[in-house]
């Protein structure tokens, strides 16, 4: 996304500007605990927010919206309950549009790549959750670090199944990503094994 303007920077900032933000943080923790929500499912709940609402609300409101959405989806509360208590409209995230993941496929136990290897990111477009940023899809980079084996977010967001794979930190030359000739800049993105060709 581009054309977003200046960063609203401040050097000193409290953890919470307003007390409701701390409560929203705690409510999200309570819901994810009660409904056993994975990190992937939680992040996807935020990604499913109506785009205008997402861009015009702060991160604590994102957390609140995810908490309320997950509470409804997991049957802890109903939307009608929420609206009645709030005395008005209660915006929730949109429905999951990706099909459920029925087969987790096989875990990857050994890294396919090592430090220094050239890799290419797969190019695909999912209606569901992924942690592969769009700006590196199809791009080539170099592995600079091989990290641990971790649960694949694309699976855990859409299933109770799990698949684990190695993750890699991959260095991309910024000029190759953006085709703008900028010099001396590299961008490192941490990617699961299945994100790579």
């Amino acid at each position: 996304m581009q054309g977003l303007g200046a960063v609203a920077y401040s050097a000193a900032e409290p953890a919470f500007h307003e007390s409701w933000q701390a409560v929203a943080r705690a409510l999200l923790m309570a819901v994810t605990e009660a409904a056993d929500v994975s990190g992937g499912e939680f992040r996807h709940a935020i990604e499913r927010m109506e785009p205008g609402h997402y861009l015009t609300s702060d991160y604590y409101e994102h957390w609140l919206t995810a908490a309320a959405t997950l509470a409804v989806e997991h049957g802890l509360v109903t939307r009608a309950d929420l609206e009645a208590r709030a005395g008005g409209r209660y915006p929730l995230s949109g429905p999951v549009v990706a099909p459920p993941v029925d087969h987790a496929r096989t875990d990857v136990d050994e890294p396919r790549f090592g430090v220094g290897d050239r890799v290419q990111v797969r190019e695909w477009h999912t209606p569901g959750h992924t942690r592969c940023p769009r700006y590196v899809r199809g791009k080539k980079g170099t592995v600079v670090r091989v990290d641990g084996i971790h649960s694949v977010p694309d699976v855990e967001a859409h299933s109770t199944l799990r698949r684990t794979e190695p993750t890699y930190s991959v260095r991309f030359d910024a000029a190759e990503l953006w085709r703008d000739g900028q010099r001396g800049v590299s961008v490192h993105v941490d990617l699961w094994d299945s994100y790579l060709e």
Partner: protein
Amino acid sequence: MTEHGHRPAPPSPVEQRVAALEALLTERGLIPDGFIEEVTRRYESEIGPMNGAKVVARAWLDPAYKQRLLADGTAAIAELGFGGPEGHHMVVVENTASVHNVVVCTLCSCYPWPVLGLPPAWYKDPPYRARMVREPRALLAEMGCALPGDAEIRVWDSSAEVRYLVLPQRPDGTDDMTEAELAEVVTRDSMIGVALL
């Protein structure tokens, strides 16, 4: 109405939504007594950049510690008693006279909570997330981080499980300082990589 003639502001819509979800979850027994207060206290006073500053100060004074920190961030940070959610897989990247590191999470707001606390609002907002990978040299300059024109910039997008901490350069004129005094010099922004010391 109070005797001073003003009344508290009515709750905003987001505060009403927080209160509604809090009430419903409490009625269902999903929020233990004191939980919200405990979460607030933890994020406001236990975790924050004062923890990361202690790590940096130790690394400046103790070359063996610095070596361990760069080799295995998680273990070296745990030596000082810091760890937990969003800090299980720490990588520390070192700034030098010619290399500048800066951290972003383009997909959401991943941030090393045990050493830096909750992220500042600007870190979670779209302008920072979009522009730090697209035009980091211009954005750093705009945020007041004046790098030499030929400095190499390494951007780290925390897109998987690793969380990054920048080890800033020790400023001149600090040779006589104690570890506690050095920790006072270290700022949150220098450990994100959007400021120099």
